[in-house]
């Protein structure tokens, strides 16, 4: 057992526990915060698999970007200070069953499959190869930026304050 194994096991535990809380914690803010655990664990696993650029990109985009936006959304729209308790236990029955079914089926397929052709990750720098792929065969992925633009404009149009009248309340100010 090497240190890498211990690290990977730690990431599995952290990510699994955090994912559990994301799914089941009654307080939505705690769910969002435990999402940090899952994302960081996945970034750690990327590192363990030799994908250094992806690990950093996961941190920079997911943790530094998406999660901030999620937290802003939670803080601006939910009654987080009223601690919600597990009111919807009934609501969880069907989803848990469905997820268990999916998990069981796919886990069986995974474990039954033949994974004998396995290699060790080679810890080579990946960023350069990814760059060449992004301007070569995967140029279309790189130019997916058009969708980024559409997303940007769409999101801003949707989130923009609805009417001028609606904002005419003096209590909010420019804080």
């Amino acid at each position, binding site marked *: 057992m090497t*240190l*890498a194994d211990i*690290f990977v096991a730690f990431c599995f535990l952290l990510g699994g526990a955090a994912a559990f809380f994301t799914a089941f914690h009654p307080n939505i803010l705690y769910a969002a915060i435990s999402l940090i655990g899952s994302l960081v664990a996945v970034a750690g696993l990327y*590192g*363990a698999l*030799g994908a*250094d*650029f992806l690990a950093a*990109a996961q941190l*920079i*985009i997911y943790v*530094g*970007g*998406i999660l*901030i*936006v999620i937290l*802003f*959304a939670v*803080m*601006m729209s939910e009654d*987080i*200070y009223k601690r919600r308790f597990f009111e919807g236990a009934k609501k969880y029955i069907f989803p848990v069953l469905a997820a268990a079914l999916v998990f069981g089926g796919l886990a069986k397929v995974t474990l039954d499959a033949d994974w004998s052709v396995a290699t060790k990750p080679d*810890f*080579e*720098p990946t*960023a*350069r190869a*990814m*760059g*060449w792929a*992004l*301007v070569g065969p995967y*140029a279309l992925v*790189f*130019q997916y*930026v*058009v969708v*980024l*633009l559409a*997303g*940007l*404009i769409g*999101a*801003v149009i949707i*989130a*923009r*304050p609805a009417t*001028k*009248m609606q*904002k*005419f309340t003096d209590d*909010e*100010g*420019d*804080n």
Partner: protein
Amino acid sequence: MLQEFGNALSFVLLAAILPPLILFIGKFFRPSFPHEGKLTTYECGELPVGSAYVMFNNRFYLVAIVFLVFDVEVALLFPVLMLFREAIEIGGPAISQVFALSFAFLGVLFVGLVYEWKTGDIDWVRDAVDRREHLETLEKGSSK
């Protein structure tokens, strides 16, 4: 490479456990005289009124959304612009490929920024402008 990952990891782990460690060690040295007054929220001596979770100007949210898109852009450009020097040395179509693709990318997002600039979505004071316009329309309405 794996060794370098390990080095970086030891930095992050040490930095993350420092605060709890320091606070834990401090537990044995620091005094503890709990008092009702110390447990209240600090509001310059006044008793806090209402909840701290006030509604926010959703400008913050708009900025965060715009940031998200540009963040992706910066992160994606890193591996591509890294090839610039190498492509110059290779010569031929490689350099124009890298240049055209990466600046098409930048250009498209710049169009987005210009659009937002024109529509005023990145103006923080837009509310104030709206308010003034609204007041003007009110005045016009009352003078009629």
